[in-house]
């Protein structure tokens, strides 16, 4: 079933590429339908998933591939992967359904989206390091073409920067994977076995280098300061739906990778260096928030808040892996919070980027100071922006708070100072989002926007679904928390 979820989008992409004569409308309808299949399959997986089970991975599917190397096509989920894969499937439906500028090539545009969905789902569902790595690289390819061919402005340069930068990261991951796997005997790429064996435990420097390799690669992907500068460039030039996927899905690959590989498989060295990882998280929180506050461009501002939010996630993960024993309850809380942050950030920032897309399509302008007083003119767009902004600044009753509360409370038990300093981030985020709303939506309406149109049906529906989930998770988070917490519990032991 999970395999079907991964490869049906690929089949859809091939169908789009192989056949001609698609109208834009038909291509979009087809893409939405295909993208919806994995979502349905994952909802079924969600229903079949048992949070109380003792096994870390469930719904496992396995096919032999290169037995001598211990490589196999293995997919399956724990609570963390299941929630992220479901988020991915949902965001792809939203991104494809959102009105887009396919610049006369709808077939290719939707095909690349479906290809990218395959890569993303494959990554989150993979239980084999080689399979994981292959999907990791494929995701770069998909995003590269979406930004490069359908972006605006200097998009090719931005796409190349994104590609080269993250490819450098992925090579570092590859070396680390080899360093990790070569320590196993018999050799295996099986994640469950690697988590079980902790192959590099007690090897000192070698484990340290492997950890560094993973952290560097995933840190670039996440991104953490100072490896984040590809992000604003890529976002500003990317078409809005691609930005949504980039922020909502691709960034998660970095933090998910950290949870899946170094946190789980290099427990000992991770604990040794966790404090420094936490410091990187705090720096990302504060630096990302402050730089976001310093932006006058709407999309760049939102892009930098991603650095800030992923900083929360890194901090939570660092706290979760900060000790080998003790404070289990708090560390599980931190890890659950970090995962919820990924889901929440995916939904919230996904929605925010779609909103910037609505701005671009109407006005071709991201400068905040060129707007003002839009609240009466475009009430639905305003309402969606206010809700998404408050969710992003961590207002209770919305998804972001659920995540950030758990991260900070959990981290406090392990790194109290880091938690206390990091808290300033939620203050700066509040300031920057309130200022954003004020500059764009309140005050007097400049006369040139007096014919700006409000959200169209498909925009409103897409944003509505994402924001409804943000509210649902904020008000009634239990269904999500219990599934994720089952993963944190089994991963960290109790």
């Amino acid at each position, binding site marked *: 079933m999970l395999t079907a979820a991964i490869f049906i989008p690929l089949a859809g992409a091939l169908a789009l590429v192989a056949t001609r004569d698609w109208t834009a409308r038909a291509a979009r309808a087809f893409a939405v339908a295909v993208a919806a299949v994995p979502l349905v399959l994952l909802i079924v997986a969600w229903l079949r998933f048992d949070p109380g089970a003792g096994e870390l991975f469930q719904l496992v599917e396995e096919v032999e591939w290169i037995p001598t190397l211990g490589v196999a096509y293995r997919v399956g989920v724990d609570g963390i992967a299941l929630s992220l894969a479901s988020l991915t499937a949902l965001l792809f439906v939203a991104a494809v359904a959102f009105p887009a500028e396919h610049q006369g090539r709808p077939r290719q545009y939707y095909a690349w989206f479906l290809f990218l969905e395959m890569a993303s789902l494959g990554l989150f569902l993979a239980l084999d390091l080689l399979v994981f790595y292959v999907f990791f*690289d494929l995701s770069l390819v998909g995003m590269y073409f979406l930004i490069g061919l359908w972006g605006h402005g200097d998009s090719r340069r931005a796409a190349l920067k994104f590609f080269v930068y993250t*490819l450098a990261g992925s090579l570092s991951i590859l070396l680390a994977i080899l360093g990790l796997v070569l320590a196993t005997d018999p050799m295996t790429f099986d994640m469950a076995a690697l988590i079980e064996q902790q192959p590099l435990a007690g090897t000192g420097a070698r484990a340290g280098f492997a950890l560094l390799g993973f952290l560097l690669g995933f840190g670039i992907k996440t991104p953490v300061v100072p490896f984040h500068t590809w992000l604003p460039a890529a976002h500003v030039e990317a078409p809005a739906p691609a930005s949504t996927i980039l922020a909502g899905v691709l960034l998660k690959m970095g933090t998910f990778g950290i949870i899946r590989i170094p946190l789980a498989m290099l427990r000992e060295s991770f604990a040794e260096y966790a404090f420094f990882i936490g410091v990187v998280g705090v720096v990302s929180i504060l630096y990302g928030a402050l730089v976001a506050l310093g932006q006058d461009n709407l999309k760049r501002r939102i892009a930098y808040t991603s650095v800030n939010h992923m900083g929360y996630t890194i901090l939570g993960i660092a706290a979760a892996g900060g000790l080998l024993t003790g404070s289990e309850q708090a560390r599980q*809380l931190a890890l659950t919070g970090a995962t919820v942050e990924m889901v929440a950030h995916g939904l919230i920032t996904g929605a925010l980027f779609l909103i910037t897309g609505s701005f671009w399509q109407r006005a071709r302008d991201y400068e905040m100071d060129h707007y003002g007083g839009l609240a009466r003119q475009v009430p639905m767009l305003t309402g969606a922006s206010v809700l998404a902004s408050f969710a992003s600044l961590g207002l209770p009753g919305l998804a972001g708070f659920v995540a950030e509360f758990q991260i900070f409370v959990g981290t406090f038990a392990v790194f109290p100072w880091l938690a206390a300093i990091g808290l300033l981030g939620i*203050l700066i985020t*509040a300031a920057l989002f309130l200022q954003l709303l004020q500059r764009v939506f309140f*005050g007097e309406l400049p006369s040139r926007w007096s014919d700006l149109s409000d959200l169209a049906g498909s925009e409103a529906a897409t944003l509505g679904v994402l924001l409804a989930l943000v509210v649902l998770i904020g008000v009634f988070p239990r269904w999500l*928390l219990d599934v994720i*917490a089952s993963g944190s519990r089994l991963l960290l032991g109790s």
Partner: protein
Amino acid sequence: MTWSLALLPLCAGLLLWAWQAVAGRRSVATTRLVLAGGAASTLVALGALAGWATVLHARAEAAFGAGLVLSAELTAEAGVVTVLVPVIALPIVVYAVWHEEAAALPRLVGLLLVFTGAMELLVVAADLLTLLIGWELVGALSWALIGYEWEEIENPQQAAHAFNATRFGDLGLFVAAGAAFASVGSLSYAELTVLDGTALDVFAGGILLAAAAKSAQVVFAPWLFSAMAGPTPVSALLHAATMVAAGPYLLVRLFDVLDGAPWFGPATLAIGLMTALAAGAVGALQHHAKRLLAASTSAQYGLMFVAVGAGYPLVALIHLVAHAALKALLFLSAGVGQAATGSYELARMRLGSRLPVTALLTLVGSLALAAIPPLGAAWSKERVVAAATHEAVWLGVVTLGAGALSAVYATRFQLLAFGPTRSEQPSPRPLVRGPYAVETGALAYLAALCVGLGALWWPASRRALEDWTGSVVPAGATWEVVASLALAAAAIYAVWAAGRRQRLLQPTLLGPGRAVAEWFGLPTAVRRVVVDPSLALAHALARFDDRVVDAGVGGVAVLAGRAAGALARSDDRVVDAGVRGVAALTGWAARVLAGLGELGVDGSVRLLVATVAGAGRDTRRLQTGMLHQYYIIVAVGVSLAFVVAAVWR
């Protein structure tokens, strides 16, 4: 049932807000009736529900997920405030329906109700997570209410200032929750009593920070001035029974835990006393009706902090109730004055002769604020003084002084806003409009409440309160009451005399007086020391990020490019030369071998056999041992293929 205390106003508020969609098609009168009816019935039901839940000592729990639990409990303290909130909100919301313009009224009334619901959640909370949810929701809704008239950009700006200031305090709650969870493994109030040592210090510090910020104490006081950008009913509700009241309420609710930290009492007392004195001075010099009242709010909550700090939380709670009634009344009166003159400037009011009923009702509130018996607020203020005296006599005396300041600003407000028209005054401008009957009704309701609270002077009511809450009220000495009354009388006389000589407005025109009236320049200081540098830092970092961090990456790219160029050149020179060299060597070797070959075919064959056998052995080793490297080569090759594909497209 317990949760419905929060959910009922929340849902009703959202429903009433939704009326905005149809309001355009209905008459204004219909909209007003629907909103007033909906809101009033919700609040009456909420009051009844709150009373009933308090009597039942209701509790509730709900799983949040991941092992966290939301819990609520109607303790005696919580019961008092849960009932107080709808009792005070009712006249304010009904007043708002007629006082404000009809255009966006459903949003205002809806938000006011949602705000009430958030406050109720904060009050019934029995764990830190539930508390934090209510606490932050109250803050965010206050943003929406203060910025209600968003077309004027100052309003959302002020709202953002208020939200940021209180959110800074919210961080204290996060810290407190973290300290509690790290130490006890639970967020429930009931489990917190075992906190001690550093964990307790951190916890108490966080709670005190949050309470001080919410209640506009010391450095946080100016946010209440910003909050004045909101409509009058919003100010009334914010100051009287919600939001600002959350600070002392939380200290009262968690007093048993907090009191375990030895520094907690003195620190709270110091914060409260400083604020009461400073805010008293501000109030005594302000010339803007709502700002004068805002300063008095800080001062009165300061007195509650004093009571908590002195170890008498029940006194703080009673003063909170008495203050809620009088402050709501005074704000609504200020709104009537503004509607009549078109301005909040006290210099333009003096409406006593023209609005005698309003003036009389306001007088009740002013006397209560000045702490004149037999009004209830006078009793609770006496008890605050008594509590401070129990700590140290000099503290009692200073508190008396702070109390006298409240008599000064209360008299000043009453005289300037609703004093009798002066005989020598030039013929006054015509009123913009007089109060509506509903507005006067709301004032009368609150004035009656102020008078009714006079029952506190009755000793039996005090004993009943002590029995019910299990807490004590300090016995007061007679000299305190006498001194307090004498000071109040002197203060009133002094203000009245100054008023006769038309000196009440002058000090505010002078430099130092104006500086005091604007919170001793604190808002400017906060802007210069915190806000402006933060924004400057943000912009500087944004430039740094573009020019340095990103340029660093660009630099690496350039370096890589140069390195590649250098390698390419070395490729030409070294490798190429190497290849040529090898070729030459091979030629030489071939010639040598050709000469040697003639030595004998036999030997060559043996050599060949040996070589093949050795190569076979080596190849077997290669197959097992070199596979990982082979894999690396393949993987790097695949990656390179992607790069090529990408660049070539």
